[in-house]
């Protein structure tokens, strides 16, 4: 059974399933580094997943879908930014409001546009970036098969996730923007007193996380599933938050942590195929990512140090 379970497809599936979590978690890392908690990522993913499908169906082009998905997510993240940055609202509550709003808005639009609740029509999903020929037989063929499947078989947004993990980690530690971003989340008043615009910096960070959550939603519907189902994000936004903590508030770390969740998900899907061999009800497999999240949090929280001012509204002047 081992050789049937541990295949290149298992790892590829792990990367694919990790991608929406990772995209959101990377955005979450940027956002929290600026001092704003974004628990709205669940809702942002949901809105963009829906907007992507709706636009793709309307325009008959999945890439327009991606664009609209990102736009919708950025717009909703602007609400969160306005409430939590300008009006200094409780960030967790503002995020929760957006999560519930997202359920309502997607459900409402679904019934208004498609005339029924549940699942939308199906769109043609985005194809993998590269379509390489399968290798021949022999050891070389096997190696090629592994390389091809595990590294070269993905759709574009999967690569965007990998690239942004590397790029944003670099940017966070090597660029002016990154230095200022880290200062904002640690000691916003210090940043203010040297002339850095705290509110603008935080706005940019929240919008970046909106952008990333938009990509996550688009990846979910336009690259993976092909249709939208109500509440289909199923807690991925919350898992992304945990991944961000596990990754110690760095984009790269968040990506690696997401891979762990993706792998758990891929493994449970694979193992479900062997339900006649392993007599475990499917619900227990489905629980796995959530249980893993709890275990990860139990193991890492307390040792990981959050940005000092995360979650605290900043008042510019009196």
């Amino acid at each position, binding site marked *: 059974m081992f050789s049937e379970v541990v295949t290149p497809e298992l790892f590829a599936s792990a990367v694919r399933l990790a991608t929406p979590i990772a995209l959101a978690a990377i955005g979450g890392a940027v956002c929290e580094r600026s001092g704003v908690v974004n628990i709205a990522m669940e809702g942002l993913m949901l809105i963009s997943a829906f907007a992507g499908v709706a636009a793709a169906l309307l325009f008959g082009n999945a890439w327009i879908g991606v664009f609209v998905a990102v736009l919708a997510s950025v717009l909703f993240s602007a609400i969160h930014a306005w409430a939590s940055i300008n009006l200094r609202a409780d960030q967790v509550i503002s995020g929760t409001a957006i999560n519930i709003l997202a359920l309502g808005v997607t459900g409402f639009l679904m019934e208004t546009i498609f005339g029924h609740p549940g699942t939308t029509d199906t769109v043609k999903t985005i194809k993998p970036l590269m379509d390489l020929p399968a290798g021949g037989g022999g050891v070389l063929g096997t190696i090629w098969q592994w390389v091809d499947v595990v590294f070269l078989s993905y759709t574009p947004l999967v690569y965007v996730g990998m690239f942004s993990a590397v790029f944003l980690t670099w940017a966070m530690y090597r*660029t*002016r923007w990154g*230095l*200022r971003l*880290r200062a904002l989340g*640690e000691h916003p008043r*210090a940043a203010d*007193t*040297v*002339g850095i615009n705290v509110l603008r910096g935080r706005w940019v960070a929240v919008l970046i996380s909106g952008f990333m959550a938009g990509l996550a939603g688009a990846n979910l519907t336009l690259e993976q599933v092909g249709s939208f189902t109500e509440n289909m994000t199923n807690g991925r936004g919350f898992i992304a938050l945990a991944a961000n903590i596990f990754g110690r508030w760095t984009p790269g770390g968040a990506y690696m942590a997401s891979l762990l969740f993706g792998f758990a998900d891929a493994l449970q899907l694979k193992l479900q195929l062997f339900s006649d061999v392993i007599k475990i009800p499917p619900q227990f497999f489905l629980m796995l990512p959530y249980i893993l999240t709890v275990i990860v949090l139990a193991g890492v929280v307390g040792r990981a140090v959050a940005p000092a001012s995360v979650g605290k509204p900043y008042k510019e002047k009196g």
Partner: protein
Amino acid sequence: MSADPQAACELPPNVGQDRPPILELRNVSKRFPGVLANDDVSASVAPGEVLALLGENGAGKSTLMNVAYGLLSASAGEIVVDGNSVQIRAPRDAIRLGIGMVHQHFMLVEPLTVTENIVLGMEPTNSWGLIDRAVARKRVVEISAKYGLKVDPDSRVMDLSVGMQQRVEILKALYRDARILILDEPTAVLTPQEVHELFQIVRELVSQGLAVVIITHKLDEVMAFADRILVMRAGRVVGETTPEECSEQSLARMMVGRDVVLKIDKGPAKIGEVVLDVSDLVVLDDRKLPALKGVSFAVHGGEVLGIAGVSGNGQRELVEAITGLRRPSGGTVSLKGRDITHDDARRTIAAGVSHVPEDRHRRGLVLEFDLVENVALGDQRREPFSKHGILNRSALDTEARARIKDYDVRTPNEHVAASNLSGGNQQKLVLARELGRNPELLVASQPTRGLDVGAIEFVHRRIIAERDSGKAVLLVSMELEEVMSLSDRILVMYEGRVVAEFEGGQVTEEELGLFMTGGGRTPTEPSRASEEDTGA
């Protein structure tokens, strides 16, 4: 380094007054809801001049300077730089005009390095638009050499001492080519030796043509270092003078508006039994590093034992260990012979330990609670406040009203939220709760921080009253003057150990300061304390 620091001190003291002012504040008013913090205030400072802005807490000094730095916007008035009227809407405007400010609470990002903190907001970039770290580091090294401010550019700020952090703050301003440097209560956290070094640095800066404004409430510093003194009271300027023209006594009268007794009145101590006995106490800090490395001492009934030391040498951990907020990892604490080493805060309170914490907003009060519920805090499980887990609201109200009256807490009624009281009244409320419980031991940590003179006097009188009624008092304070005037005995803490013990009134600030920085431990030092008391 080009200039000789000694040369600066030989400049004539009034050098600044002949030059035109570089910064002028004209008729500035600043209104907060319910308070007029600045009322038609005018002030100016010239290059080469040290201006002291003297006033007690809440007089409006910091407000005025925060207006000049763009952190607050004035309700009325004009700011003039180099003879031109300017608008300062945000710190970036102030920076552009050459104004730099070192805040009382440092504006440093602790996990970042010294260099990163200094260049933050004005980072040198290379042709790719990326931070040029080599250039940044070089500039920092250059400036610190030019002004004689030695600091390691690559250390993380969180690893630096307070004095070093202050240097980084000054470097931050100089990096931005500040011509006017505002220092807000710069000596509050420094040892006497560090204060001396700071004023040498200030002299060096002034000699190179900077204008320096020092916000302070300490009379002796003003007398020693200012060229010109502006005294503020209740939001107004009440006088302008020079150290030559005035005395500490006359300054104090101007600052407070009445005659002030600078020395507290207290009779000789009537020493009683040992109340608190601390022996070989070892306590870890939040990072699990030893903060107390075997501390032993005793506090008797009828005495005030003062603890002097630079912030961060284990005082906080000591207080938390005694009051049950932190588990000691070794040694014992006992109260009247009863072992309370491992008691939690609730049991410690019940055993008779009262605690006036250093931060009344964070630790002392639940600001959202009304005064009644704040008075109950710590006694909520005890009769008559509650029985079988049910609160006795009428007993609570009665007790709260009585304590509010006893401790002169000014409030419309006992059901307003504590957040609506002034700082002084909030501290009185804390005292009303902690002393009203009639403890065996009072642990007071920074009990007068941020209070005005009236409230300070009140707190001091109450502490002495506790002592005179035979109770034991452990006083921890960064204000050496406070420790010296209240204590019957003084211990000095340095790096988690008690390094010296003095009888009250038999030691100078300089001697204390020496031990506070570890200097007193050298064998050549004549005033070295008896080592057998350190429990080493």
